[in-house]
Structure formats: structure tokens, C-alpha cells
């Protein structure tokens, strides 16, 4: 029943989007009002059909309707409702359906926002979105078929992968990342439409920036939550492992970050047109590559599902988009009018943006090479290898230092040209504060050069950003008077995007410092404690008060109860545990994390003998909390800039 309904709905969505390609194409070429309106309606129809289809799938998951093949694959009677809901994205077929849904919703939102805008360029963008949607709904109809009927229906299913049941973040991380990944299609479609029509006016660029900022916010949040999930669930004491699927999310993030900055220069100074458009197109290609890497099973990872024929189809689609967009760029780039650009000198904000693009592109290229190399190697030599973290870090460290320096220098220089005197005046105080922070950190006894350098750069960036945020307020106070609070509020309303950018920069500085400190000063050990005994490790005293088994509907949670003290002061209880799932032959650990302002304490069970001793792997890592805080500031800053102004349609 639900199978048939679902099949009908996804076929309807496929027909709507296929018709959408034709109608939007005709609308774009003929520029007829009727065709434009019909193209938009088809976008809404596809979104409606896919929303209903996803609703049907959720209904089947919640009611445990095992006659639907996807439910039989990931559902189980013992699974709690919330986990049933999120198991939509816990396996291949459901996640492709979800991809299609998100794309259809983005497309409908785009059609709605551009309903009064220049219809030709909007219809060209719709063509691009519809082509992508046809590919994804095509997958749901043909090879990734969540609605396939099963007869006879099994009485129960295995439930979703236990790793994915282990933390609430599984309900948030995947959809957030999808919103980032899939959303990349919108700036891509807009860039292609600009190339095809030869128009890239201020209005279109402003809209592109807003969409890119949204996508970037979701992508950043998704990556951040992924790191947090890895940290809270996997029990290896880290948040980033340079795993190919993590890299797959970092790649479009790097190029999109570059694209957003390049777009600032294109819209304000009419420069870097080819950089901007190419970076946006590359970002979309990288999200497709990332989806391929995570969804086709070519890599062994918690993200990859079983082998399926989806891989070759994805590669073909990537090839089509690559060749198609390259051709469009090659043939049309010269036709794109942006107006006469003002000139610029070597010491100017433009050049800092150029360096930002260069460094971010280089970063992306080194990560891409290291991530794809194992695939190529396996295809040619048949041997399985992976590229270790040190390769990536060798490039990530110097490139990040360069990027952080630009974060402070760039905003201090003016457009066009900056005289040496002005540059020195602008930079003197922030550089001095940075030096004080860096040298101070080193004198305070922090070993190595990494943390003092990161602290110095962070102080430099924060000073510059705060000054830039305060500058419009000070100027207005001098000119117009009024209360400080009123002028602050007015500055926020007037230049919300710029204020948001500086908040994101401050967040970046904090996150960079946290990453440097937590990775370079991580201490790891193994502790075995007998019941009621106390063991000291790295200045902490752990008292093991006993183990406890808690029976839950879908698992047995076996935990070790530990009391942690430091210098006689009790810090609290920690309960690392092992979980036994009925559907899995082996247990899964859940680490215990104690977040402190200065450092995190992290315990994960290696061995827990009932009524016997416990062995835990212990980690202490400084400043981890600040990574989440800095990351959230980045997301918040970008979201502030993305929030649409009332008059700024499309």
C-alpha cells in the first residue's frame, strides 16, 4: 500500500522535474511570461510530490511497515520512534530520497524568491536545478529504490546501524550537512545562469551571496556537528581524522569559502569574475564528488553503505556536469558583463582577497589529492592503502597560518591602494597585541611554537575584527551623536553582513587556536582500576565506585561509575559505557566527556568486567570546548549575513 503510493509519488516527482527541464528551457530561450510561471509551478509540484513521498516513508518507518523494502532494511520493532524517524538517512536508499527532497525544496524556495526577478536568468537557473533533480529522483526510481515492495513482508527487521543509534546528534548532523551539500546546487545554478545569459548584475550577485552564505552556514554547522559526533560517540578521543569522507565535506567548504570572498570583490569592485564563477562551479562538483565518496561504498567508513550500482551512475553524472560546465565557462566567460573595474595596487584589499583564493584553492587541491589517491591506486594496482593524517597536516598547518594572517591584514587595508603609512598605522596596534599574546603564551610555559603562534594570530585577528565592527559606530557617534546603544543598533541594521563577517572571523580565530592546542597538547593514557580503588593520572584522581547494567528496549548499557577529583576538589561523575545491541555480535562503547573551560577530560572503556576491574583509555586535551564555541560563532556570523533583507529580493 505505502509502497505503491510512494512509487507513484516519486514517479510524479520525476515527471514534474523532467517536464521542468523542458519548460524552463523554453522559458529561458523564448522569455515568455506564461512559460516562466509554468516552470515555477513545476518546481513547486516536484517539491510537493517529494515531500509527500518522504512523509509516506516516515509513516512506514514509524508504523514498522516491513512490506516496504527500506523499512525491512533499517527498521526494527525494538527501535524507539525518534530513531525510526531519523533512520530515513541511516542507509543508502533512504538517504538518496532525502537528498532529492532537500533539492526539490531548495528549488521551490529559489523559484519562489525569484518570482518577480529577471525571469530569463531565473529560468536558466531552474534548468540547472531541474537537471540535478532529475538525476536524483531518477536514482530513487531506478537503482536506490526505498519503496520497493517486499512480499511476504518480514515480521521484524535488523534496525539501523548501532553506531547511528548511539547519539542524538544523528538526528541533526546528517540533515544539516545535507542542507549544505544539496544547497550548493543553488549558487551553482545561479552561476551557470549568469554565464548562459551573459549577465552578472549587482542584484543577481547579492542574491548569490545570500544563498552562498546560507549554504556555507549549513555546511559549516554540519561539519562541526560531525566532528562533535565523532568526538562524543566513537571513543577515539578526536574530532577529525582526515578520513576520506570527512575530507569530502571539507573540500567544498574550502572552495565555497574562497568563492564567497571572491564574490565580495566581484560585487564591490567588479574584479575576479572568473575566480568567483569557477569556484562556485567547482564547489558544486566537489559536493557531488563528496556524495559519491560517502554513498557509493568506495571507502570503508562509518558513512559508507554496501556496494551498489550507484557509484558508476554518480561518476557519469559528475563527468557530465564537469564537461558541461567547463564548456559553458570556456564559451561564455568573456561574454559576462560586470562593468569597468577600478584598478588596484599590490598593497590593497583586493590582493589580500586574491591570496585568500590562492591559499584556499591550494588547500583544497592538497586535500583532494590525498583523498582521491587511494581510489586511483586501488583502481590501478588493486592494493588497499590510505593516506595518513601527517600528509594533510603538513599542508594544512602552513596554509592555515597564511590564511589566518590574511584574516587580520585583509580587513586593515583599503580597496584600490593603501599607502605604507596608512597600512602601518592600521596594523601597528593589532600586531603589537598579537605579539604580546604570542610571547605571553610562550613565557607562560606552553611548549612548542604552534600554540603561541596560534594565540598571537588569534589576538591579532580579534583586535582587527573588533575595531572594524566598532568603526562604523564610532564614525556615526562623531557625526550624528546620539547614544552608543542606538548607534550600535543602527550599525547592525545598516551593515549586518559586514558585522556578521567579523563575527565569523573571530570564530575562526578561536577555532584555529582550539584546534592547534587540542591537537598538539593531547595527552593519552590507559588506566586500570579495581572496584572502590582510586588511581591518579595527569593530576586527576579517579575513583571507581562500581559497574552497573541498565536494560533499555533496544540495548543493554553497561557502565562504569567513576568519581573524578582534582587537587581534592570533586569535579563530578563520569560514566563511560559499553552498549550491547541485540542485532550486533559485539558491543559498542560510549565515551564519557567532561568539558572544562581549560581542557576536556575524556574516558572510553577498553574493558569492563562485571563486578571486576575497569580499563579505560583516558585523554586530556586543552581548549576543545573553544572549538565548538568558535565554530558556532562562524555559523552565527554567516547566518547573520545570509538573513534576507526585506527589500532584497530575489
Amino acid at each position, binding site marked *: 500500500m505505502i509502497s505503491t503510493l510512494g512509487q507513484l509519488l516519486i514517479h510524479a516527482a520525476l515527471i514534474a522535474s523532467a517536464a521542468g527541464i523542458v519548460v524552463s528551457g523554453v522559458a529561458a530561450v523564448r522569455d515568455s511570461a506564461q512559460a516562466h510561471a509554468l516552470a515555477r509551478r513545476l518546481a513547486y509540484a516536484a517539491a510537493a510530490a517529494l515531500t509527500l513521498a518522504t512523509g509516506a516513508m516516515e509513516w512506514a518507518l514509524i508504523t514498522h511497515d516491513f512490506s516496504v523494502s527500506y523499512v525491512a532494511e533499517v527498521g526494527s520493532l525494538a527501535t524507539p520512534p525518534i530513531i525510526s524517524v531519523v533512520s530515513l538517512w541511516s542507509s543508502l536508499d533512504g538517504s538518496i530520497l532525502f537528498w532529492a527532497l532537500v533539492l526539490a525544496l531548495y528549488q521551490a524556495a529559489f523559484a519562489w524568491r525569484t518570482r518577480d526577478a529577471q525571469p530569463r536568468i531565473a529560468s536558466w537557473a531552474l534548468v540547472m536545478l531541474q537537471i540535478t533533480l532529475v538525476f536524483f529522483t531518477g536514482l530513487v526510481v531506478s537503482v536506490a529504490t526505498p519503496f520497493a515492495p517486499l512480499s511476504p513482508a518480514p515480521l521484524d527487521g535488523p534496525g539501523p546501524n548501532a553506531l547511528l543509534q548511539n547519539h542524538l546528534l544523528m538526528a541533526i548532523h546528517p540533515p544539516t550537512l545535507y542542507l549544505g551539500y544539496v544547497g550548493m546546487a543553488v549558487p551553482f545554478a545561479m552561476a551557470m545562469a549568469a554565464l548562459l545569459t551573459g549577465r552578472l548584475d549587482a542584484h543577481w550577485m547579492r542574491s548569490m551571496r545570500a544563498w552562498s552564505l546560507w549554504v556555507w552556514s549549513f555546511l559549516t554547522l554540519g561539519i562541526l556537528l560531525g566532528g562533535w559526533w565523532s568526538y562524543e560517540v566513537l571513543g577515539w578521543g578526536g574530532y577529525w581524522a582526515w578520513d576520506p569522507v570527512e575530507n569530502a565535506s571539507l573540500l567544498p567548504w574550502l572552495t565555497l569559502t574562497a568563492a564567497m570572498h571572491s564574490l565580495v570583490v566581484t560585487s564591490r569592485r567588479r574584479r575576479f569574475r572568473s575566480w568567483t564563477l569557477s569556484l562556485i562551479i567547482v564547489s558544486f562538483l566537489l559536493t557531488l564528488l563528496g556524495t559519491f565518496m560517502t554513498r557509493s561504498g568506495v571507502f570503508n567508513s562509518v558513512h559508507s553503505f554496501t556496494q551498489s550500482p550507484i557509484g558508476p551512475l554518480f561518476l557519469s553524472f559528475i563527468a557530465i556536469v564537469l564537461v558541461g560546465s567547463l564548456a559553458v565557462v570556456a564559451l561564455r566567460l568573456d561574454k559576462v558583463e560586470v562593468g569597468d573595474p577600478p584598478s588596484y595596487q599590490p598593497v590593497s584589499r583586493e590582493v589580500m582577497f586574491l591570496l585568500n583564493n590562492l591559499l584556499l584553492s*591550494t588547500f583544497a587541491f592538497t586535500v583532494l589529492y590525498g583523498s582521491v589517491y587511494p581510489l586511483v591506486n586501488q583502481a590501478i594496482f588493486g592494493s588497499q592503502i590510505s593516506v595518513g593524517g601527517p*600528509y594533510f597536516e603538513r599542508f594544512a598547518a602552513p596554509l592555515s597560518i597564511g590564511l589566518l594572517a590574511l584574516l587580520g591584514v585583509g580587513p586593515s587595508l583599503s580597496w584600490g591602494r593603501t599607502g605604507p603609512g596608512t597600512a602601518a598605522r592600521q596594523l601597528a596596534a593589532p600586531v603589537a597585541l598579537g605579539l604580546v599574546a604570542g610571547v605571553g603564551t610562550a613565557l607562560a610555559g606552553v611548549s612548542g611554537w604552534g600554540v603561541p603562534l596560534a594565540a598571537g594570530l588569534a589576538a591579532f585577528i580579534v583586535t582587527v575584527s573588533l575595531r572594524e565592527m566598532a568603526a562604523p559606530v564610532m564614525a556615526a557617534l562623531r557625526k550624528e551623536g546620539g547614544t552608543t546603544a542606538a548607534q550600535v543598533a543602527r550599525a547592525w541594521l545598516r551593515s549586518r553582513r559586514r558585522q556578521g563577517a567579523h563575527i565569523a572571523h573571530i570564530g575562526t580565530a578561536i577555532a584555529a587556536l582550539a584546534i592547534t592546542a587540542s591537537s598538539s597538547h593531547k595527552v593519552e593514557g590507559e588506566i586500570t582500576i579495581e572496584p572502590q580503588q582510586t588511581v591518579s593520572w595527569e593530576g586527576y584522581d579517579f575513583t571507581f565506585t562500581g559497574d552497573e547494567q541498565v536494560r533499555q528496549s533496544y540495548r543493554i548499557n553497561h557502565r562504569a561509575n567513576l568519581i573524578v577529583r582534582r587537587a581534592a576538589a570533586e569535579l563530578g561523575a563520569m560514566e563511560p559505557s559499553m552498549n550491547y545491541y541485540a542485532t550486533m555480535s559485539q558491543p559498542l562503547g560510549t565515551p564519557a566527556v567532561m568539558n572544562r573551560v581549560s581542557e576536556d577530560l575524556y574516558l572510553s572503556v577498553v574493558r569492563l568486567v562485571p563486578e571486576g576491574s575497569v580499563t579505560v583509555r583516558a585523554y586530556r586535551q586543552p581548549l576543545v570546548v573553544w572549538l565548538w564555541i568558535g565554530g558556532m560563532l562562524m555559523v552565527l556570523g554567516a547566518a547573520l549575513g545570509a538573513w534576507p533583507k526585506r527589500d532584497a529580493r530575489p
Partner: protein
Amino acid sequence: MSPEQKRRGALLLSLMVGAAALGFLMFGSLGDNLVYYWSPTELIDAGTKAQGASIRLGGMVVPGSVVWDEGGKSLTFQVTDNENTVTVHNRGVPPEMFREGIGTVVEGTIDRAGVFQATRLLVSHNNEYRAPDQEDGHMDDPFKSVEGL
């Protein structure tokens, strides 16, 4: 050549030199940081090349081969792919599920004496039972189930 052309030429040249240097660096660092996913047979086939390399060795713990060192802080056992067998020495307490006959993946490198010195021991998590591929003696399964853990 006009000054403008000269400037462009110099810029292009410096970009090319930069790209070449980057390529050289990337190629070199990649070679130094590869992690090999090997079965005991592949490890033995690699010969002395394997000494000092980063290796993830996957296979089955040979029943009856586990010997605990004094104090129970480290252990020695053998890993097999049904064709060849490698002796593994692991420092530290193994995970709770570690036992004889189970699929395992150990990280580390092989020393001159031919003993694999493991720095990390993982037990493979298999959600579903799958018979190992007997035909070519490869056991890819252990890797499949431990990544990300």
C-alpha cells in the same frame, strides 16, 4: 614586450614555479605517509619494504596462539588469512571483545625479527555475517568494519 606583458609573464612564471614546488612537495609527503591495508600474505610478500612502514594488518586471531605477558599489560598472538601467519605483539589491554578466532585489525609496523609491533588493536565489528572470500585468500572484511572506530 610591453611592461604589462612583462609583468604578466613574471606572474605566470612564478605561479608555475609555485605549482611545480607544491606538486613536488605533495608527491613526496604522500609517499611518506601512506598506510597499507595488508593481509598476512601481502605483508610477507612486501618483504623488507614493510619494515618501518605504517601498516594495518587484517586477519583472524589464530586459536590457541594468544600469550599474555607478565602483568597482563601486553600480549602476543598470531594473525592469519588462512594462507600465511604473522606474529603480533601488542602493548596495552585489548578491547573487551578480543578473543581467539575473532577478526582483528592491528596498526603498527613489522620489525626486523618479523614480529608485528602493534600500537593499536581493533576487533572488527560486523553488523551482518559474511563469509570471508576464500577464493583469492583476501580478507577485506576486517577493514570494512573497523574504519572510523
